[in-house]
């Protein structure tokens, strides 16, 4: 297919084998090196989208990252749909499928465009006014009628629904100098820093390095054409091993201490060579940052400035030089700045018809202006565009004196493209994000970097220094400075000085019908900002939120300063007095994929499994998540429900013996001459008198006196303790201890080492536990007398060094075998084999919970909620009464802690023995129902196989005094009666423990 707007030279893209791509269902041919925008423009396609609010037809405005209009969805096949991409940045590849957005049913005929007719309805502050609208309309009408309509009408692309099959990588990296932007300034900086030996990263968001040098056809650097200098500079940099060059890489945010986020579009280059890596996020920690991010051309503000075919002037120069694309056949230029003359001259030189240059300045002068006149280009000075016409593409512009409102004075000029230049805005985004100050530069009508943060510099156009010579000079100086090198001088020629004017406000023509747009993406026009000011907005922050100007995905790259000027004019203030909005990261949108990296699916969080886990999996266990751990929840047999499996596991454990994988328990080895003294500080219990070989149940409080963890403290030697914590509390308890040790008790000679994963723990519980393990244990006498309840012995199990504790969380005779993790599975299987002849059962965490509840053993975090004291739990016996101090001791004497009526830990037996209360259910007094006084809540509730009925544990106000009372649990529209009992349902005397 021919490309009618591709000029003979073809720019930098070569004819070669054509690429085929689809846009809105139409097939086109393009060339390698094209962007979607340049390829469409080569076919004369300017109409690429519909605007957000009014659904006005919109065309390509720019040639770069600042593009507000040409947002497209790109469909790369299954799961690879990306909405809201800027067509100016989408690199063309064969088979690319792109669609325009925000139009229905089609781009050329959009029903939503009736919004333009109801434009008054969508005035500034529309959302606020609607949300705050008359109550008469009613919330229901809003929810059911208006909101769906607004959401349907005001959308930007569609979110993909399929999982993303691509790969995203993330790397941290470090460098001496990160140089952002590879135009003239960035290249000069990289050359200077690289020559001086610095470790340099040079990044640019475009596929090719060079910035504006890529479209420079007249200027020379050191007597060479700009393009030749660029080629030589890139070759020199490529030869420096200390310089890393990353193209297609957007520096999207500057964070504390020079951490800069870069997003590299790897897949755009060559997806085959990159293992399906689509994007790579670099977190760069740079000693120094040189910003060479250039400047963005500003649109002019006139009625109908949003018609397809109305573009930024320099963009037309870029399309011509880089892609060989003429943006029209008869091009009109409107400007307040000399730079647009260069565009007109280049177009004329390429044979494109130039209808004239409309210059808002009364008497433009200078080398470029004269050159244009000399080339026969008509210059209309002191004139402004008053309006445009054309349905889906500009056809004609009306030109009149700047201050005139009279249609009679207007001249009509036919054109198929209108190029506008309202001056240049330095891209100070990263400078501002780095906490650099901004100062107003009246000469260029823009904010420029002021005082910079440490180790951040700006060079060239982003610093307000326009022109090739300034870019090279500042870039070179910055690069030399950060690397300790010396500066050099570049000689430039044929780069005429360019100036502009900013304080020109053309009057609105009486004949103009269209809005004059400021923010193209969010459809904010001059009248919206003026209305916001009339309605009382004074700061630009308010104007922004009221009108949504600058709040679209482009963050107002092309519009913010224009909006600021309109607001300042309406307020009668100078621009700096109106303020400036925040430059937020990211500079351009970053995909969720890039931010997530490989941290998804199985790699989102560590999935921690115990050494015994493979055995449990092979047995068909159901698992539950406990923190990051996977724990065996229960072991269902064929056809068994969870309740049946749990009941069987409980019954069999109490009848003979059960095996439980307790490896996830937190373990801390506390060693040193002051170990006992330190533990006395950290736990409520006394330990000085705990003999080596004995264990003690221990409670840990916070400063407020509330229980935060519990565990077993086993004394292995006078100076060595093996301390267990809850599974979820392992890291927290260690940190808690370290915190106190380092800040409160630094004089103590005691050290803490986590041994949670050193030991696999096999709990063997039940009346036959001793029988099962005795054949496997060496060097330990497991008899009742030699190893009583709550003792610890070191010896060997299955030949491996082991710590065997006689402890019980079931109320039955129990042992916990600790062996080094790598032997955990082997020992488990050996115990299991021994248990086979003794009706052993493996039980999971659910049966563990049930059996401990039958005994009234507390689970910290389930039966406690951070407001529970030892006495509340009935565990006052665990407090060492003669201890001078421990963490939380003082708080236990606080008036509210010793006051009567606190919630206390009790048991509940529902009148209906089959009814299992909900955990968390409220408990009310004897009056029952909604009128009852709230007394507490159920903390644990199960069906107890040992009792053959339901049981519950609860925190109830004044609970121990209520034993025998009947309270009520209101739930699901009815009220369940329950009797308060002591929280020990099974073997209250503990006779089964001492066997």
């Amino acid at each position, binding site marked *: 297919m021919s490309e009618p707007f591709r000029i003979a030279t073809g720019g930098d893209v070569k004819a070669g084998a054509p690429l085929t791509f689809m846009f809105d269902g139409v097939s086109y041919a393009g060339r390698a090196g094209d962007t979607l925008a340049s390829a469409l423009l080569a076919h004369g396609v300017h109409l690429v989208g519909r605007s957000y609010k009014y659904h006005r037809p919109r065309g390509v405005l720019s040639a770069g990252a600042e593009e507000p209009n040409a947002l497209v969805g790109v469909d790369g096949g299954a799961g690879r749909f990306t909405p809201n991409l800027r067509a100016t940045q989408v690199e063309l590849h064969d088979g690319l499928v792109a669609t325009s957005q925000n139009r229905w049913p089609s781009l050329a005929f959009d029903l939503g465009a009736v919004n333009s007719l109801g434009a008054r309805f969508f005035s500034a502050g529309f959302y606020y006014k609607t949300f705050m609208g008359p109550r008469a309309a009613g919330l229901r009408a809003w929810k059911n009628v208006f909101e769906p309509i607004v959401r349907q009408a005001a959308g930007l692309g569609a979110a993909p629904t399929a999982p993303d099959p691509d*790969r*995203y*990588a*993330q*790397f*941290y*990296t*470090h460098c001496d100098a990160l140089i952002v932007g590879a135009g003239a300034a960035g290249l000069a900086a990289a050359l200077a820093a690289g020559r001086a030996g610095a*470790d340099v990263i040079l990044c640019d968001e475009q596929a090719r390095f060079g910035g504006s040098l890529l479209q420079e056809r007249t200027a020379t650097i050191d007597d060479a054409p700009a393009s030749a200098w660029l080629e030589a500079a890139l070759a020199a940099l490529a030869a420096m091993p200390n310089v890393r060059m990353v193209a297609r890489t957007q520096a999207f945010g500057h964070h504390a201490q020079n951490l800069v986020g870069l997003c590299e579009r*790897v897949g755009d280059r*060559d997806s085959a*060579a*990159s*293992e*399906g*890596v689509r994007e*790579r996020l670099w*977190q760069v*920690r740079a000693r120094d940052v040189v910003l060479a991010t250039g400047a963005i051309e500003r649109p002019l503000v006139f009625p109908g400035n949003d018609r397809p075919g109305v573009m930024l002037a320099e963009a037309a120069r870029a399309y011509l030089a880089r892609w060989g694309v003429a943006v029209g056949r008869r091009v009109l230029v409107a400007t307040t700045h000399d730079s647009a003359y260069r565009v007109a001259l280049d177009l004329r030189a390429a044979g494109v018809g130039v209808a004239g240059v409309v210059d808002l300045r009364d008497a433009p002068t200078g080398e470029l202006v004269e050159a244009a006149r000399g080339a026969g280009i008509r210059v209309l000075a002191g004139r402004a565009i008053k309006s445009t016409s054309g349905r889906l593409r500009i056809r004609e512009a009306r030109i009149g004196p700047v201050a005139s409102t009279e249609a009679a004075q207007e001249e009509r000029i036919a054109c198929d493209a209108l190029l506008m230049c309202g001056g240049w805005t330095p891209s100070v985004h990263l400078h501002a994000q780095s906490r650099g100050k901004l100062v107003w530069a009246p000469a260029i009508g823009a904010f420029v970097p002021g005082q910079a943060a440490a180790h951040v510099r700006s060079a060239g156009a982003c610093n307000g220094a326009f022109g090739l010579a300034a870019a090279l000079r500042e870039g070179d100086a910055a690069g030399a400075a950060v690397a300790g090198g010396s500066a050099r001088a570049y000689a430039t020629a044929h780069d005429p000085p360019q100036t502009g004017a900013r304080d020109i406000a053309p009057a609105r023509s009486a004949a103009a019908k269209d809005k004059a747009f400021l923010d193209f993406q969010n459809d904010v026009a001059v009248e919206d900002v003026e209305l916001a000011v009339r309605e009382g907005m004074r700061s630009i922050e308010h104007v922004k939120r009221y009108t949504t100007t600058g709040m679209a995905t482009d963050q107002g790259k092309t519009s913010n300063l224009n909006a600021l000027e309109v607001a300042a004019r309406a307020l009668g203030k100078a621009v700096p007095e109106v303020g400036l909005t925040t430059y937020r990261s990211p500079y351009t949108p970053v995909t969720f994929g890039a931010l997530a*990296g*490989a*941290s998804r699916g*199985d*790699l989102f*969080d*560590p*999935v*921690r*499994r*115990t*050494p015994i886990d*493979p055995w449990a999996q092979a047995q068909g266990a159901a698992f539950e998540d406990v923190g990051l*751990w996977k724990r065996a929840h229960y072991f269902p047999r064929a056809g068994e429900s969870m309740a049946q499996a749990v009941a069987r596991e409980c019954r069999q454990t109490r009848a003979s013996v059960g095996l439980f994988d307790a490896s996830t328990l937190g373990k801390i*080895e506390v*060693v*040193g*001459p002051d170990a006992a003294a330190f533990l006395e500080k950290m736990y409520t219990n006394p330990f000085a008198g705990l003999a080596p070989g004995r264990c003690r149940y221990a409670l840990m409080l916070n400063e407020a006196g509330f229980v935060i963890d519990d565990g077993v403290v086993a004394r292995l030697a006078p100076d060595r303790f093996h301390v267990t914590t809850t599974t979820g509390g392992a890291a927290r308890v260690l940190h808690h201890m370290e915190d106190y040790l380092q800040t409160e008790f630094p004089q103590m*000679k*005691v*050290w*803490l*080492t*986590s*041994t*949670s*994963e*050193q030991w696999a723990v096999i709990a063997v519980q039940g009346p036959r536990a001793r029988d099962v393990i005795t054949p*496997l244990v*060496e060097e330990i006498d497991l008899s009742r007398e030699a190893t009583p309840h709550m003792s610890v012995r070191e010896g*060997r199990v*299955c*030949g*491996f*060094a082991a710590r065997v504790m006689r402890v019980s969380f079931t109320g039955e005779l129990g042992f916990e075998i600790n062996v*080094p*993790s*790598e*032997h955990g*599975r*082997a020992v488990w299987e050996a115990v299991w084999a021994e248990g086979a002849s003794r009706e052993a059962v493996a039980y999971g965490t659910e049966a563990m919970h049930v059996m401990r509840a039958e005994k009234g053993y507390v689970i910290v975090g389930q039966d406690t909620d951070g407001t529970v004291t030892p006495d509340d739990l009935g565990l006052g016996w665990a407090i060492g009464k003669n201890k001078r101090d421990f963490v939380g001791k003082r708080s236990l004497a606080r008036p509210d802690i010793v006051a009567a009526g606190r919630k206390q830990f009790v048991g509940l037996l529902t009148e209906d023995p089959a009814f299992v209360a909900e955990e968390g259910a409220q408990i009310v007094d004897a009056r029952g129902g909604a009128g009852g006084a709230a007394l507490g809540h159920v903390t644990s509730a199960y069906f107890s196989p040992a009792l053959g009925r339901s049981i519950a544990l609860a925190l109830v106000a004044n609970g121990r005094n209520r034993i025998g009372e009947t309270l009520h649990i209101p739930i699901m529209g009815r009220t369940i009666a329950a009797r308060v009992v002591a929280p020990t349902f099974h073997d209250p005397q503990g006779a089964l423990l001492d066997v």
Partner: protein
Amino acid sequence: MSEARAANPTPPTPAFPDDAEASLQSVGAAARFVLRGETPAARLAGEALGVAAPGRINRAEAAGLRAMLRLGPDEWLLVADGEAPAGLAGSLAQALDGTPHSLVDVSARQVGFVLDGRLAARLISAGCPLDLRDGAFPVGAATRTIFLKAEIVLWRRAAQTWRLEVWRSFAPYLIGHLAEARRGAADL
């Protein structure tokens, strides 16, 4: 009962795509101890181990298959590849007798890997924010640090050779991410 019963020293881990640019090997069984205490304790332990105790924090000293990594002002990680902990525990305890210290066997707590090749440092930097360039992390440097959501000990053995130690249940996460990073660095 005999010590001969087969052990499974490393947990099952995802495969790492070894090639010339980066390869990952498990170090297998090793004796490991955390030594806490003051400098004299480290000196005595070093003598018993036959390794010069590293004086500077974040440095490691090695002799043969034995090494001492100084991870903090009062913390050293002792590693003896291929050894069983029992024998070493005895000689260390003997050497340290009478000097306040804490010596804790963590042989089974963690597992060790060697990541080798031109891309090794790049892959570590997929999850570790430290500056791993020669000037900041020279050969012989060692530290406890993070790799995404896991804690690791990182020790640079040679220019392109890195030892990683990680708690055993975090190993699949670490290796999984290193393997993903290898693919993410395919063109680097």
